[in-house]
């Protein structure tokens, strides 16, 4: 019973309040109902009784609970039919007056009552003079016309404000997302929603937007003047400016400009983690697969969760290279606490006793905890040195594993991976330090790797001058912030960073953004 009373208060009463606005019109209707109830027997029977019954049905909490809550409830009030009630009373008043001057006064009073209690619909902000035959905003039409000059059926990414009208103008236009992207008409993919949110946000992540635009063959990109796109990014993705209309710019990438972007690797720890250590990388391909490497060590960091949610909660592959808390801590937390689905989990293969002998207490403790979460993955693969995998086209070679090093203990040992696309390779050194230099030496000649990128942990010590000259990477990732590198804890990371930059190498770290590269 109390539940039904609650329903009467909210949402029934609230909906009624919002439906009738300032309630002047509701008052007028109530007066009209009372008048007809008293003044006309016929209209009382024909009109007022049914209206009263309908009102009682609509505000009935039981019917609301089982039927009306399933529809847009405020529209139920349409049956109260004020457009019949009020004119009926107005004319009845006039009819009931015997003298002409009385009729004139009744007429004037009725007109005044309607005008005074109501608001004129033509005052609606969004009700404007016709702009074109389709009755759409000129801006939408202008932007769409620019695209239609280049393509009869333009596939595009555009701000929602334009996208909601684009297909009303021309059904051949195919925006990646429209009004439905937040689930109003039908639920769009999480990635589409994320891109829509980004594009409509204050500072869109154009890197990501263009990556997916390319991957999804969206040849047109519409952006707002106030959110300019970096020219280097446009060049990188071969988008060129083809026109502007009012506050919108239209960019186009012709089919002949298509390039295979390969796999996008993102150092996620660059999401402002300050001086904390973190090993968290994600790899995405153009088919929407998500590969997580390590995952970082702390819960509550939005970066990785957001990525996984953008992929509808699916992680196609998760590779744990080390049980250092900065690497695998997030796996344990997310696998246990978040609604995520891991298809393939790749973990180091070792004899537990051997590992226990070399692991730190924190590593062993985390390993023990992670073991309980392994069952969250559909398939668990154990990796050891020399293994070669094909993860959705990306070749992954295990160059080094956890405990093997001539029988010597490696307290901070880890799996070292070579991630190879069609032509290029990224070396992922995990938390490993300079002890793996010998592993990497001679690598490019032995395996024919075209090493483009190297991940260097927090100290950067893996890469000495000799190794640099041998591998010649274009960019390296150091998993630390500048301030960390400058401290003694960073050992000589800052010097290494400076040295590499002098050589023309791009050094990504926690203070640079966006930290994404492509393995082609």
């Amino acid at each position, binding site marked *: 019973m109390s539940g039904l009373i609650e329903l009467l208060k909210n949402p029934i009463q609230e909906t009624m309040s919002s439906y009738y606005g300032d309630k002047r*019109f509701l008052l007028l209707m109530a007066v009209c109902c009372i008048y007809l109830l008293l003044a006309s027997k016929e209209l009382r029977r*024909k009109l007022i009784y049914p209206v009263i019954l309908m009102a009682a049905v609509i505000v009935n909490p039981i019917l609301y609970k089982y039927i009306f809550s399933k529809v847009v409830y405020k529209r139920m009030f349409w049956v109260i039919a004020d*457009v019949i009630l009020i*004119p009926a009373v107005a004319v009845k008043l006039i009819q009931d007056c015997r003298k002409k001057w009385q009729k004139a006064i009744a007429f004037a009073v009725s007109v005044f009552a309607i005008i005074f209690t109501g608001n004129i619909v033509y005052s609606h902000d*969004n009700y404007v003079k016709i702009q074109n035959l389709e*009755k759409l905003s000129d801006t939408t039409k202008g932007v769409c016309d620019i695209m239609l000059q280049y393509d009869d059926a333009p596939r595009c990414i555009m701000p929602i404000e334009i996208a909601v009208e684009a297909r009303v103008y021309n*059904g051949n236009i195919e925006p990646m997302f429209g009004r439905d992207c937040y689930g109003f008409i039908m639920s769009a993919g999480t990635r589409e929603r994320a891109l829509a949110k980004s594009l409509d946000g204050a500072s869109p992540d154009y890197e990501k937007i263009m990556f997916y635009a390319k991957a999804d063959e969206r040849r047109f990109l519409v952006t707002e003047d106030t959110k300019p796109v970096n020219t280097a990014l446009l060049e990188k993705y071969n988008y060129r400016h083809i026109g502007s209309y009012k506050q919108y710019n239209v960019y186009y990438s012709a089919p002949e400009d298509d390039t295979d972007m390969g796999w996008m690797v993102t150092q996620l720890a660059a999401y402002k983690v300050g001086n904390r250590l973190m090993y968290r990388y994600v790899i995405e391909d153009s088919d929407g697969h998500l590969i997580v490497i390590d995952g970082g060590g702390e819960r509550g960091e939005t970066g990785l969760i957001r990525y996984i949610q953008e992929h509808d909660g699916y992680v196609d592959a998760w590779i744990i290279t080390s049980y250092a808390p900065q690497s695998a801590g997030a796996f344990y937390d997310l696998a246990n606490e978040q609604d995520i689905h891991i298809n393939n989990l790749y973990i180091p293969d070792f004899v537990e006793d051997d590992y226990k002998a070399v692991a730190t207490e924190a590593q062993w403790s985390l390993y023990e905890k992670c073991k309980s979460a392994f069952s969250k993955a559909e398939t668990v693969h154990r990796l050891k040195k020399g293994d070669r995998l094909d993860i959705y086209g990306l070749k992954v070679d295990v160059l080094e594993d956890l405990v093997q090093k001539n029988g010597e203990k490696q307290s901070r040992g880890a799996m070292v991976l070579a991630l190879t696309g069609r032509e290029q390779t990224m070396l992922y050194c995990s938390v490993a330090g300079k002890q793996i230099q010998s592993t990497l030496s001679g690598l490019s000649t032995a395996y024919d790797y075209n090493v483009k990128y190297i991940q260097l942990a927090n100290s950067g010590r893996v890469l000495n001058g000799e190794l640099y000259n041998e591998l010649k990477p274009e960019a390296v990732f150091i998993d630390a912030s500048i301030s960390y590198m400058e401290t003694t804890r960073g050992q000589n990371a800052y010097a290494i960073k400076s040295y590499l930059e002098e050589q023309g190498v791009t050094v990504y770290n926690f203070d640079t953004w966006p930290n994404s590269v492509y393995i082609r």
Partner: protein
Amino acid sequence: MSLTFTNIILAAVVLGVVPVLVGNTVCLLCDEELLWGKSYVIGMMAMWAVCQLISVPIILAKGSFLIVVAMLSGIFVIISSYGLVRKKYPAFSYDTQNIWDKLGFVAMLIFIIAVVVLGVLLQHTDHDDSRFVVNAVDICRTNRMFLTNPASGEMLGIWRGELVKDVTSPWAVFIAWVATLTGIHATVVAHVILPVFIYIMIGCIYFILSKEIVGDRLVYRSMFVCFAILVLVFGFYSNASAEAYTMLRIWQGKAIVAGAGVPLVFLLCMRIYRECEKKSLYVLLLICEMSLCLLSGMGIILGTVMVGCLGLVYGIIKRNIRVCLGMWLTAFPCVVFYAVNSLLG
């Protein structure tokens, strides 16, 4: 996009002449007085009901829109021909001898024309069109009904999300049908052409309804319509009001339910109240309920609630259970389509 003279003539035929002819036939069959306004309203209502009856099974069978176009056009030609063959046509039979009656009638026409003209010359950008109008655009483009995502144009092949509601209330099919026959883009049909005819229809409904409320005198009937228009124009007390829907986005099915459907149900029920023994009135109410199903899911619910309440009250007042049951039975299409929708969704 442009609008040629031929397009306009075709639109006038499809949305002006054909409804009158169809209404003429229905009025003849239902033994109703043949009047222009009444024929137009009943004709339009009957066309929507036929559209609902024809299109929903074809939509459920995922059939081609062209089948709907062929069947609807054929049926309307056959129905229209009946009245022509019988050589019975609507008349204009109002007493305009009194100067006040004349003035009132002219004022009413001016009010209706003003609403129509403002409806054409003003535009309201409504985000709901990204579903309702785009559905019609996509139907014309693909000849498939409700199988594309209106937001992206992607072919879905199944009914998803809000589109499930459109399967049982396929108002977009009617817009697409008009667009196909007239050669006018579906958006222009919805935003420019349709409002003209719907506003005229609403004017006619209130004029016919006025007889049930204020009697036969033309001046009072005209005054009733003028006041109704005044309420529609000044009834913008919230964005959700029936008046706001009627005046701002009349091309959408739910707005037609608010603007035309609700008064039409009142009109037919009041006729039943007056002539409860006339069975053809129940048939007209049945047709009306069917047409509400085409317009919107709201039409299904509101049609049922209204007929349920009006039937109960009139049955009690008349002390005649047959009136009550007869009126309730007219909601049968609403119940069926609600059930189909529930099964789908």
